[in-house]
């Protein structure tokens, strides 16, 4: 069985996954300890998924990636992106992938989740940051 973590505030239930790991990052983070706990949760789930040679996907806020929602949420979102890129390199020959979906604030969580599940199942796309919507166009993201 796979595992999915979605914060309560998102308002949708975590799906039951046959394989892999899905991690939706919390955006309301008030302390360094909370930020570290969030990254640690993602690490533990990702490691377990990698050990089973199964893919994983992170879901982050585009505003957080750009630093618009404060340092702590930016650290989590951008940290997850970098971690996924390293994981993508490590997993490729083993047949598992790692990707990130970045959503905009006004998007329907169920639609965001659907796209993330597509990535989780795809098997060819890896190390990608997939933006939903055009909010990243012209912005400083690499």
């Amino acid at each position: 069985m796979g595992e999915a973590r979605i914060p309560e505030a998102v308002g949708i239930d975590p799906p039951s996954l046959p394989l892999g790991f899905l991690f939706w990052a919390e955006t309301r983070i008030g302390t360094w300890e909370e930020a570290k706990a969030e990254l640690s949760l993602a690490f533990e789930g990702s490691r377990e998924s990698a050990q089973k040679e199964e893919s994983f996907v992170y879901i982050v806020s585009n505003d957080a990636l750009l630093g618009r929602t404060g340092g702590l949420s930016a650290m989590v979102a951008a940290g997850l992106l970098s971690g996924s890129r390293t994981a993508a390199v490590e997993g490729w020959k083993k047949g598992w992938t790692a990707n990130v979906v970045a959503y905009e604030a006004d998007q329907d969580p169920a639609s965001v989740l659907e796209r993330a599940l597509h990535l989780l199942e795809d098997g060819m796309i890896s190390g990608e940051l997939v933006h939903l919507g055009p909010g990243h166009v012209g912005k400083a993201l690499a």
Partner: protein
Amino acid sequence: MKGTVVVTGAARGIGRVIAETLLNTGPFTVVGVDIAPELAFTEGIVPVQVDLTAGDGPATVRSAVEDTALPLLGVVNNAGITRDARLVNMTDEDFSAVLDVNLGGAYRLTEALAPLIIPGGAVVNIASRAYLGNFGQFNYSMSKGGLVGLTRALAIDLAPDIRANAIAPGLIASEMSMGIPDDIREKMIAAIPLDRMGTPQEIANAVFFLLSPQSSYITGHVLVVGGGRSLT
């Protein structure tokens, strides 16, 4: 204007050269921070031996800055460690240690010092090209990516008076890179268009630029100093 700059990880490696460069070429009093008690700071640097991941570490640095009785012009978050392993083999301890030092320490110190930085001042975070991904460095990549995220947030939150930028060094000839086996290091160099490792001085030069008025319209940027390695 004469003022103070804080450099972390200043007793060795790239941080030591950054601290020396600022001391010797800028109008700076340099507060050097490092955890290693066995190391000596360069003469002329105000030494603070402290653990930035521990409770009162950042407050101790803040006191040292206030003791200089000079305006705080900049903070250079350079301290960093590696604990490399493939994700499947990475331990909780190695993940936690790298996050604490590379990201938590920088966040906590910047929180403590930002109120002291005067208009025109700047924060420079030393990230790594590994923020773009690097085999065997899930923890390090994540910490340095987090530092890039923090940089973007600081650039917004501290504007318009204070700038924040990051530098992403590639393979630099330092204690850290000398720990890489020779054959692997040679392969890494072969993939660098400029065909060599960078020097700590070349990172220090970039730090000096980003602290100086020469970069007065640059904020929220990640400057990759990697000899073109990101292209190959």
